[in-house]
């Protein structure tokens, strides 16, 4: 009997040992696979200066910490990602509602995939903070590692609601906490009969397409350019529940995508929205913004080619940018330094006319744009005249210098007016915009050029001049 007991204990110990070895073996495998994925992510890592929809992040990747998730027969490895320079952001306080991670896995074909996951709660965050859509409780945004958004997943009280691209939902994310601080209170539903409402949200996007004739084949090509959210409506479904656990809201949010083709008839708002929301343009503009706030940072500029390629100015000096050749471009940007007037100069306006003159017949001169960012402003100008108007504007250096002198002297005069200056040294926004319209009038370009202001959330406003010399920003939507 003793022998039997002894042998049973040995078998039990062996069994336990075997289980432990299995467990250790599995951990080792996971670590090995994690190292493999971490290495792959590092080699693909392009999001060090990652721009999300609303602000720039400098992200770093922690490969020593990971979690695994199994969903749909696929094992996902998830690593925390840290935003390093939050102190630089005006909205840094909101980052307690935002968390980043990177997810890597081999798909069913064995191909390596990796995405940046941005979990957001929108509790207590102003509506306009969310340009991607203001979901009921929060969103998960899925990006490729180079910063291109792939998917938005909406959550309500921690439950999955809807997704823009169901192919990239990642099942395990559906029940991940959105974020602790803001949503913990929402996770314990009340155990009383109560009528609950679920939001049904409709997002309407305009998908912009560019139509052009292929130079080699001669065929007309329709190329997808960008998708811009243009409206969001919310309605509510009401139901009564007795359960302590809320039923998941119906997955009834709707995403409408309307096609729009940018031709000569597109509005300035549509064109600017399309242009500034391109990832390459956003990154390049952010670079200019950083430069504009750096003392002695100098002036930088870039031009955007018709195929969307961004090319820097040929000369970028302390207070001067030169574009040697602008053929085949849509427009460009430059920054004004800390010392300069933070508004378009006559030379800048003349540069817009140059961009307008190289637009294709199909696009028309109105497709051209020229942007200016400074430490505190982001403006765009667009030509509103016709091609025949354009032919009449061939300004000489003497004219441009005279208007530059006019602008400087009007600035010196207007800073003495408390309406246009807050410190009697610099013009405020109204003063800058008045200066722009006065300069346009002097150049004979009144009503031929539109001024647009872009706020920190990339919302665009058309700046209209009023009869009393003031200005009114009109939102583009």
């Amino acid at each position: 009997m003793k022998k039997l007991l002894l042998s049973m204990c040995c078998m039990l110990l062996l069994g336990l040992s075997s289980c432990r070895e299995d467990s250790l073996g599995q951990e080792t495998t996971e670590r090995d696979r994690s190292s493999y994925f971490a290495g792959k992510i590092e080699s693909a890592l392009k999001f060090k200066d990652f721009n999300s929809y609303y602000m720039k992040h400098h992200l770093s990747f922690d490969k020593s910490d990971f979690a695994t998730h199994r969903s749909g027969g696929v094992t996902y490895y998830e690593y925390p990602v840290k935003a390093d320079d939050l102190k630089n952001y005006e909205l840094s306080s909101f980052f307690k509602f935002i968390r980043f991670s990177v997810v890597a896995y081999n798909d069913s074909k064995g191909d390596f995939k990796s995405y940046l996951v941005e979990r957001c709660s929108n509790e207590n965050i102003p509506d306009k903070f969310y340009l991607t859509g203001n979901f009921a409780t929060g969103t998960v945004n899925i990006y490729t590692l180079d910063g291109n958004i792939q998917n938005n997943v909406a959550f309500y009280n921690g439950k999955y609601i809807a997704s823009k691209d169901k192919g990239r939902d990642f099942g395990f994310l559906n029940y991940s906490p959105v974020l602790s601080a803001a949503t913990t209170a929402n996770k314990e539903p009340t155990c009383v009969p109560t009528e609950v409402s679920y939001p049904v949200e409709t997002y309407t996007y305009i998908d912009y397409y560019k139509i052009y004739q292929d130079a080699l084949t001669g065929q007309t090509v329709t190329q997808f350019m960008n998708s811009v959210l243009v409206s969001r409506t919310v309605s509510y479904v009401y139901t009564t529940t007795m359960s302590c656990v809320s039923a998941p809201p119906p997955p009834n949010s709707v995403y409408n995508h309307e096609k729009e083709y940018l031709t000569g008839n597109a509005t300035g708002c549509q064109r600017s929205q399309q242009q500034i929301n391109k990832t390459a343009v956003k990154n390049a503009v952010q670079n200019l913004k950083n430069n504009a706030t750096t003392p002695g940072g100098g002036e930088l500029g870039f031009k955007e080619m018709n195929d969307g390629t961004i090319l820097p100015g040929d000369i970028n000096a302390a207070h001067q940018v030169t574009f040697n050749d602008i053929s085949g471009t849509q427009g460009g940007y430059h920054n004004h330094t800390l010392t300069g007037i933070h508004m378009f100069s006559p030379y800048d306006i003349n540069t817009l006319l140059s961009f307008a003159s190289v637009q294709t017949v199909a696009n028309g001169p109105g497709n051209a744009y020229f942007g200016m960012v400074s430490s505190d402003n982001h403006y765009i100008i667009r030509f509103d005249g016709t091609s025949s108007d354009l032919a009449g504007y061939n300004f000489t250096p003497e004219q441009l210098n005279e208007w530059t002198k006019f602008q400087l002297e009007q600035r010196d005069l207007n800073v003495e007016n408390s309406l246009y200056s807050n410190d009697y040294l610099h013009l405020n926004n109204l003063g800058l915009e008045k200066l722009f319209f006065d300069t346009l009038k002097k150049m004979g370009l009144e009503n031929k050029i539109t001024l647009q202001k872009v706020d920190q959330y990339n919302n665009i406003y058309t700046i209209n001049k009023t009869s009393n010399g003031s200005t009114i920003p009109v939102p583009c939507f």
Partner: protein
Amino acid sequence: MKNIFLLLISVLPFSCKAQQEYPLSSDQYSLPSYSYIKDMNNELNSYVGTYKASFGNKQITLYISKEIKRLFDYAQNKYYKDVLSIKYTVQNSSGQILQTTQNQNFQPNQIENTIFSSRTKPTMGSIWFTYGGTNCSVGNGSIILKKLNSTQLSWSYYPNDMVFVGNQCPSNLDITIYLPETENLVFTKQ
């Protein structure tokens, strides 16, 4: 004799209009052509002189003079004005002249290289100048001189930013900004 008298009577109103005088605080862009903006309170006089300062291994000499009733004759704007004109010389540490406008004779329609007073700000004890920039107008901007005492004034220079397309600014021109781009640089009267 009668005809001469009639001619004088008819010319007189135009002659009077051309001599219309306005204070320095006037906006020349809202005045009739050939108005005269006059330094009625002698606000400009105390800045006249030769001043020197060093900045970043460079020696800068300012020659500030007062020009009475200078004609500004631009395509869209023509007026007379009492102004301070700054000419300058910038030398390197070995005394070599990097840039000078000291002996230049500015034409009535010239803007590049000129530095003329734009606004007097008596309450701030300063005068604002407009600099036309060097070649291709690069470096155009504002200069503020503030009187510190009878022998010293402070210099603040705020250059603007330019964009050129194609060969708008020929590449063989020197467009270096030699004037000191700084705030509150103290110049001493010689």
